[in-house]
């Protein structure tokens, strides 16, 4: 019981023998964990999931489930519940028959089966829909049926491949919450694939950011957002302002980066950079302060407001600062006046909020 539920060990995968879709995947997934594979389209998320489910074989490396290699175990023997992106509900069966399918192939029939089906349909709030066909359900309801079907046989692991991507925003948020609730209540281990970063941040215990067949960073949502390991992660998760410069001095985890002749900026050193190497400074738009009170920031630079967009909960400003015309600042809409376009302002931030990263 001390080994992880799933282990990817130096897994590689190629479809055509030329390019590696998954380059070197090392990943441990703990029991009861909600782990999300997040990454842009084509980064190998589905491929990794399919290898785990047994529909693709790894070109090299090992995948271990409960400490045992599963390369030669067919999908139906892996005891993994899977929710597909298009739900893959069987159109010729009713909702109840769909949910009973994994039970009936395991020889569970009759009262035992209908009891489990009723319970799991109740869990997803679809008690009264058992006799409908999938085509008679809305997208969100179909999604719930797919989840119910993947849970009814109490698999040790549940995989979900972009299960909510076909739904509208409101429904998506509601179902995110419901999946999270099921994860807690049933103590499930879930591997979840998405390319929606807010979904990943909202749901996951840990997130593995995929890019070009590699895990760029594996961390919990807070670390991922606050301490991205490299420029790709910083850019991919949330918005950020990039300032290019050159490392001037390094002092442990702190460094100074020269942006131009008149400006050097203190920053937190994240990437393994050396003195005089080019660096990319990353500052979140919501960490920038406009006309900061004295002493509240470590860096203060002049800027010009280019335009202002009113977004209700907050205000988004585009500025010209530090040689960039695309310097974005978001301010909470706290009822105070905000600087109109074409005014010169002073902006600032704390050194801790400025990360020195590698140049892409």
């Amino acid at each position, binding site marked *: 019981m001390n080994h992880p539920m799933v282990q990817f060990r130096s897994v590689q995968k190629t479809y055509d023998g030329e390019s590696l879709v998954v380059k070197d995947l090392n990943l441990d997934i703990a029991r009861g964990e909600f782990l999300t594979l997040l990454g842009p389209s084509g980064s190998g998320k589905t491929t990794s999931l399919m290898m785990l489910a047994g*529909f693709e074989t790894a070109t090299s490396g090992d995948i271990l489930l409960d400490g045992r290699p599963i390369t030669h175990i*067919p*999908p*139906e023997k892996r005891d993994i*519940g899977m929710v597909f*992106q298009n739900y*893959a509900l069987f159109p*010729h069966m009713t909702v109840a028959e769909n949910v009973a*399918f994994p039970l009936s*192939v395991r020889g569970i029939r009759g009262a035992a089966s209908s009891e489990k089906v009723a319970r799991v349909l109740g869990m997803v709030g679809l008690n009264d829909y058992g006799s409908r066909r999938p085509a008679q359900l809305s997208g969100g309801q179909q999604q719930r049926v797919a989840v119910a079907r993947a849970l009814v046989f109490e698999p040790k692991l549940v995989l979900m491949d972009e299960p909510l991507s076909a739904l509208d925003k409101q429904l998506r948020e509601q179902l995110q919450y419901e999946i999270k609730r099921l994860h807690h209540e049933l103590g499930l281990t879930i591997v979840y694939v998405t390319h929606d970063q807010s979904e990943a941040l909202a749901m996951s215990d840990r997130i593995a950011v995929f890019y070009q067949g590699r895990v760029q960073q594996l961390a919990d949502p807070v670390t991922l957002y606050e301490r991205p390991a490299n420029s790709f992660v910083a850019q991919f998760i949330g918005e950020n302002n990039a300032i290019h410069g050159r490392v001037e001095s390094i002092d442990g985890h702190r460094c100074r980066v020269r942006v131009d002749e008149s400006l050097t900026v203190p920053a937190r050193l994240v990437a393994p950079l050396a003195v005089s190497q080019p660096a990319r400074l990353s500052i979140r738009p919501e960490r920038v302060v406009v006309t900061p009170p004295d002493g509240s920031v470590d860096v203060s630079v002049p800027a010009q407001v280019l335009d202002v967009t009113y977004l209700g909960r907050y205000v988004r400003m585009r500025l010209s600062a530090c040689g960039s015309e695309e310097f974005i600042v978001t301010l909470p809409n706290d009822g105070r006046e905000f600087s109109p376009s074409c005014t010169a302002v002073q902006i600032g931030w704390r050194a801790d909020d400025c990360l020195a990263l590698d140049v892409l």
Partner: protein
Amino acid sequence: MSSDAPALIESTTIDPASGGGSLPPPGPSLNDDLRRRLRRTEWRGHLRAYLLIAPLLIFVLVSFVLPLSTLVYKSFHDPVVPTGLPLTYKALREWGGPRDEVPTEPVYAALANDMKAAKRDGRAAEIASRLNIEASGLRTTFMRAVRRIDSVESGPWKPYFAGVDPAWESPTTWATVRNLADTNHGLFFLSALDLRKSSQGDVVRQPAEQRIYVEVFIRTIGISALVALLCMAFGFAIAYLLAHAGDRTANLLMILVLLPFWTSLLVRTTAWIVLLQKEGVINSMLLGIGAISQPLPMMYNKFGVAVAMTHILLPFAILPMYSVMRQIPPSFVRAARSLGASPTTAFLRVYLPQCAPGVAAGVLLVFIIALGYYITPALVGGAGDQMISYFIADNLTRALNWGLASAMGVLVLAAVLLLYWAYDKLVGVTNMRLG
């Protein structure tokens, strides 16, 4: 959100049929005006659509609906004899004697008058041919009387008719004539089903040696069913291969499947003759390698017909199945497997049921086409393997019994429609995918 959109449209559009949909009418005048405007724009749209397809509509009407209705009409409408001998039928009705008696003199007199008129109008031969279809020999009987009718001025006519042919004194002859009294009747359908009207006017079976069509119908259905089943079995395998092979292989296979469509039916049938005949390719090969010592009879029997027809009709089974299989995403079988189904179970319980509309469409299509098959059985089959179309053609061209041919055609059509109806009830026609 997308699922809400149609409902929104529904509730704001005013539906002329349901009187304003679910919204309370905002006021009769406004509502009426809206409705009128909607109807006018709709009507304009419809008119434009109909005008656009008018040439096609006319073509379909002329080339399909017209012949088909003529066929149905001819199968029961048969006016030659009743309009040719109007006085005779009037006299027969007035006399009203039993069918096993010869009529009285006024009937003969009426017949003589009818014959004179028919001879004058040149319609005598036509009437004689029609009578001959009902009872062979009647043509001679009728024409003998016609030939000399002008030499006699007046009656009594009974001795005249008895003199030209003793058949005129037989109650059977008169019963046959009386059976044809109506311009619309079911006699052709009766003979298509090996039945006839007896001299007593009852429906009885044909004498055993004259019964052919029921057996032919059964044989037609049997051969068609066999071919449909073979096409289903082979077609399913090929369609599966097509749907699941790589793109290049699938393209190549598809060309092979479609190739037969680009060659004439006659060429394909003759190719099978070359292969199957006694000195044909297959027999020579088998003889050559010593597998057999006598040539196998593979032609002029049911085997040959089934093989050739299956090959020719196979694409009609493959294409609907293929199109359905293509639309089944691989995630279905994957989902089934991840839920614990073995490959076989996943195939049987998830894949196969989803192929059903395509399989049903393919089988139905092959069966329907096979029902009307003509050339292939005529060339490859023996005398005992001819199907209904052969006999329809025979009645049209040799026996010149168009009424019977039409009746047989109508029966085949009815069988097809019945099948279609049953299919609609079982699977639903909207589920049928043909390609």
